[in-house]
């Protein structure tokens, strides 16, 4: 295509250049996404009966299943990106500046999928959307999910992404291409004058200052969704919020590491994603994983001492019961990741594959952890002597969740083809050389 050929040589980081690898990636994502839509339509017309979810109690099911597990996971993942970007902004951490846009994009993508996941889980999604606007109650923890996370954090991240990219947009808006209108629109008249830069720095500073507590508070409500439940063994407690945040940070950083590695490989070594970035990310991941593992260990010990009675139901289910394999494997994954990260930190020899491996382990463990938070307290946490229940997702749930992942992939994958994912102005010289 002529347009492509023209822009190919002009725009940085492969923007506008559809490589075969990217096309395959995008096509696969698209197919998975369409399958997800198909599965969801099936669910919409038949009801949630097509999922593995069932009522708790007499029906012996879990009324919240994989969707909520993944919502918790996605929203958790979203934490790290925008917070990292804010830190970069506030503390001016140059080494991480290249990935700050990717980080914010990760937040936006995972928040979008997470919030969409909430809607997909509703019995009456359309009514849910409207009634949330009309009636949502602050006393319900969903107020946090809806107002603070879905609206507050997501919109702030969008503003963050937008304002943060304006300078780069202006930079590439001069390059003739089929996307030039878009870049111009984004730049919105930015001319990189000193007052503009100053204003930008000021806005970003205050936005970052406001953003961090908002994100922490908003995402803590995700933990609170469970933490305020007096009626469920395994849930009630003030640690649910912090626990959620710590694991969120770890899983978010892990995802960022993986994404960075992918971008690095896809876009090539010419972009400023050296070992320094992975060292930073690896170190941060190490800190988050350590904290998470600490929470996990404390939790495990507490479970071991659970007294006969309600909490014991959950303890037994987790440590010895039907969820033991998930519980122990996730713990093993965390420990393995920890060993990988600590050994690198100790030797100072950071290897990209090793950090990525640790990240994959942590991300997987995070899904498992979210699962263990959401499900067992429903199937095994009934305070009345109902028989223990069980839950296993159906193909519909797997397909819909697959669709959510695909949507995230499409958002990120699509973005990198219309806008430079690595901050052009983080290392202007290199970028210029590149161009």
């Amino acid at each position: 295509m002529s347009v492509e050929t023209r822009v190919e040589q002009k725009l940085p980081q492969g923007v506008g250049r559809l490589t075969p690898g990217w096309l395959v990636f995008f096509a696969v994502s698209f197919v998975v996404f369409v399958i997800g839509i198909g599965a969801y339509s099936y669910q919409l017309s038949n009801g949630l009966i097509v999922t593995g979810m069932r009522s708790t109690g007499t029906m012996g099911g879990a009324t919240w299943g994989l969707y909520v597990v993944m919502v918790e996971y996605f929203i958790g993942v979203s934490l790290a990106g925008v917070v990292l970007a804010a830190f970069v902004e506030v503390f001016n951490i140059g080494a991480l500046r290249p990935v700050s846009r990717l980080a914010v994009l990760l937040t936006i993508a995972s928040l979008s999928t997470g919030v969409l996941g909430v809607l997909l889980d509703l019995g009456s999604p359309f009514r849910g959307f409207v009634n949330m606007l009309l009636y949502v109650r602050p006393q319900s923890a969903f107020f946090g999910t809806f107002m603070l996370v879905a609206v507050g954090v997501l919109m702030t991240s969008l503003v963050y992404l937008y304002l943060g990219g304006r300078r780069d947009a202006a930079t590439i808006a001069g390059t003739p291409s089929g996307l030039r209108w878009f870049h111009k629109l984004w730049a919105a008249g930015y001319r990189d004058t000193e007052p503009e830069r100053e204003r930008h720095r000021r806005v970003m500073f205050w936005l970052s200052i406001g953003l961090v507590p908002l994100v922490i508070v908003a995402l803590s409500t995700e933990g609170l969704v469970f933490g305020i439940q007096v009626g469920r063994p395994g849930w009630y407690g003030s640690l649910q919020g912090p626990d959620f945040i710590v694991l969120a940070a770890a899983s978010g950083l892990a995802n960022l590491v993986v994404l960075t590695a992918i971008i690095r490989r896809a876009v090539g070594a010419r972009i400023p994603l050296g070992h320094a970035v992975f060292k930073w990310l690896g170190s941060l991941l190490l800190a988050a994983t350590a904290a998470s593992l600490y929470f996990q260990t404390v939790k495990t010990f507490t479970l071991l001492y659970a007294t006969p009675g309600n909490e014991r139901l959950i303890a037994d289910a987790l440590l010895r019961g039907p969820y033991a394999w998930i519980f122990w494997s996730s713990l093993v994954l965390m420990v393995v990741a920890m060993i990988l990260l600590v050994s690198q930190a100790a030797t100072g020899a950071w290897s990209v594959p090793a950090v990525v491996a640790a990240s994959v382990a942590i991300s997987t463990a995070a899904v498992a952890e979210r699962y263990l938070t959401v499900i067992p307290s429903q199937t095994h946490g009934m305070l009345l002597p109902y028989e223990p229940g069980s839950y296993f997702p159906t193909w519909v749930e797997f397909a819909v969740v697959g669709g959510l992942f695909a949507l995230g992939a499409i958002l990120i994958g699509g973005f990198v083809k219309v806008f430079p994912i690595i901050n052009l102005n983080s290392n202007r010289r290199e970028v210029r050389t590149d161009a």
Partner: protein
Amino acid sequence: MTKYAMVVDLNRCQGCRGCTTACKVENNTVEGNFWMHVFRFEQGSFPDTEMSFLPRPCQHCDNAPCVKVCPVGARFKREDGLVLTDADRCIGCRYCELACPYGVNYFNWQDPEKAQYSVVDWKDSDLQPVTDGVVPPYKNPDLDELWGEEQRRTAGGGHAKGIMEKCTFCVQRVEKDLDPACVETCPTDALVFGDIDDPGTPISLYLRENRTWQLLEEAGTRPSVYYVGGTPPSSELKEIERPKATV
């Protein structure tokens, strides 16, 4: 003020599940949904075993966790004690079900007509002249009505896919000064319903004359259901003769 409550006298309960059945017919609940469930328990080993029964309606808590978590105010507490679900408001998030320690919430996982004991074809053409095709044939029109001062569709709303429902203390009967269907049918009068703010009602008398306990008092939910006799259930109990509750 009127404050409704229920007494369950375990010294009288035979565990017959007449209440369950009456509830299902009155409220047209679908297969697998037991607004009123009756546990049958066994504990110990031969020959030192004990058996017990425990009817479990919605506890209509004064400090109802389900009400607090409802994001849209579909679940609410009436001044007369009834905890109800507005079928027009509910979005089907099932958060109330998670919040409830008693397991009394039942979600409409599918189109209720499909779940309405569909092993039998209620749309049978020879039945149509009598039932006009309604499903189930004993469909209670009261469930679709608006009830109470608040005029909300709280009697089950005729059921609908994707929304939550639970025991309503038969609001549609209470509003007509009738006892809930379970209370009305109980063969041994083990269930008593009425206004506990009026000292002259049978239930007030019952509460004065008997020592009572409540389910999961430690949860602080302050239920409106009082139990007489028996003992609070413990994890030593094994549930036997469970109904077919899978859908």
